[in-house]
């Protein structure tokens, strides 16, 4: 049975990754999960300098999922290089660093600082709905996305994955722009912008008013978008959005994803990533699938 997948020349032992922002730098969940069993650890978004993030409350539960408006709090790329990357280097898993920024220059500075480290790939966050400058502003217009992708691709020594926002009219336009500008892969979906009101207090639950929705309720939207993008572009897709178990992951792969990422499920079940790895293997055995790559995009 083969579970290996290759994206932009990087080989992953299985298609299961962590979704950025839900797994810290890997350290926090390593007390539950053997990181060696994961295809890749995708880190929390990191910027050229430390970011404070948004005021609290930053999270809220909603039916079938949650909202978050963390605002990309992170210690900056220097701390990642000194503390988090050496920790991850101890494990036999691929490391994908998620990079965020307020300007094109911010992204490029972070990428250049990380270029000569042992990072395998960069995931470029142009889709966080919770910061006022940068991030999603680059990910909601095809020409802006093309421009930033082109510049980061030229600055990067590693393959890049543009992470797309679902908060657009036609996500295939974004996928095509990323592909045309040279992105090696795309990942989708980031969270869907939502809101929750406390009707007793007549107040917003989140200090940021809006937050990104994740969790099992968003899965059908994510599967649809992965399917549409897989028909629109040739570059590999990392699918995510509400994956809770192996069957969910198989659904994304059949929709056209080369790999999948597990996000909010980590909060609901700290062993979720391993459950997905094992669930995929069980499905392959019970359905006589010799190679995970054989079922990618198998639905018409």
């Amino acid at each position, binding site marked *: 049975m083969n579970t290996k997948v290759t994206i932009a020349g990087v080989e992953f032992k299985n298609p299961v990754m962590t979704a950025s922002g839900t797994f810290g730098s890997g350290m926090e969940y390593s007390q539950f999960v053997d990181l060696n069993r994961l295809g890749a650890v995708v880190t929390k978004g990191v910027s050229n300098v430390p970011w404070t993030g948004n005021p609290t409350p*930053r999270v809220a539960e909603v039916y079938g999922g949650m909202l978050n408006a963390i605002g990309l*709090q992170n*210690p900056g790329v220097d*701390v990642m290089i000194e503390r988090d990357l050496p920790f991850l280097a101890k494990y036999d898993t691929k490391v994908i660093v998620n990079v965020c920024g307020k300007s094109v220059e911010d992204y490029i500075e972070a990428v250049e600082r990380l270029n000569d480290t042992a990072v395998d790939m960069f995931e470029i966050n142009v889709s966080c709905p919770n910061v006022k400058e940068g991030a999603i502003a680059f990910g909601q217009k095809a020409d802006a996305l093309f421009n930033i992708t082109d510049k980061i691709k030229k600055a990067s020594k590693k393959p890049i994955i543009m992470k797309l926002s679902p908060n657009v009219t036609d996500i295939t336009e974004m996928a095509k722009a990323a592909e045309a500008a040279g992105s090696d892969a795309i990942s989708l979906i980031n969270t869907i912008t939502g809101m929750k009101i406390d009707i007793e207090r007549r107040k917003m639950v989140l200090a940021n008013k809006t937050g990104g929705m994740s969790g099992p309720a968003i899965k059908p939207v994510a599967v649809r978008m992965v399917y549409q993008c897989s028909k629109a572009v040739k570059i590999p897709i990392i699918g995510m959005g509400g994956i809770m178990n192996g069957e969910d992951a198989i659904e994304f792969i059949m929709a056209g994803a080369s790999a999948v990422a597990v996000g909010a499920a980590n*909060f*609901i079940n*700290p*062993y979720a990533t391993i459950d997905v790895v094992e669930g995929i293997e069980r499905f392959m055995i019970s359905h006589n699938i010799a190679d995970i790559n054989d079922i990618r995009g198998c639905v018409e």
Partner: protein
Amino acid sequence: MFYRNIDEGKVISQEEISSGIFSLLVENKGAAFASPGQFVGVYPNSKDTLLMRPISICETVDGATRLVYRVAGKGTKEFSSLKKGDSVRLLANLGNGFPVDEVKGKCIVLMGGGIGIPPMLGVAKALKGEDVHAYLGFRNNDTFLADEFMQYCKLYLASEDGSVGVKGNVLDALRASTGIKPDVIMACGPMPMLRAIKKYAEENNITAYISLEERMACGVGACLGCVCKTVKKDDHSHVNNTRICTEGPVFDAREVDI
């Protein structure tokens, strides 16, 4: 001692000890390693409440964790129907407790307000025999746990309506009791109470440890949902924000900007 696991807990007993306040005793592996002021994440069974509910540990009793909580929403409503023998999943143990070993030999004042009272019982128990004075604040005469504190320390009550103890809050009760000069205050309760204690402690040059609460998702330091502002740059985050679930929930009041 550090213990971190998903425990399949078994309910030993549950009772409603005051209006909407429940005392749940759960046998779990982590109980033996818990320290006063730590908390656990309790997972609802219902599929429409996905995240764990962070609940402070009231005390541990013979390999069981006692949680005293208020029914505040869907998750805690579900917990309130748990019966003897039921299973309940706990993410145990979370956060750092009160520094009980560092304060021995001092005049220690414990302060609990409302549903912030339960963790202070475990602190009182750990400090039995020390010079400990517990001040509990209630809304009215619908009190809970007060009798249990009397096994471990001296007890002072305050209520907003004056129906029990001193009319006012826990600081009013402290000011009303003569001859008590605390070296250390340890407290858990609503944010206005903790702010007032921080101010009181700073004005009187008293060390205060306060336990904070915030909406949480992961409980283990990954999601950065539950941060609190800090006076100095935090060692982990490198910004003026610290994780309540991991660096807290108990902080030296001087270190947090609340």
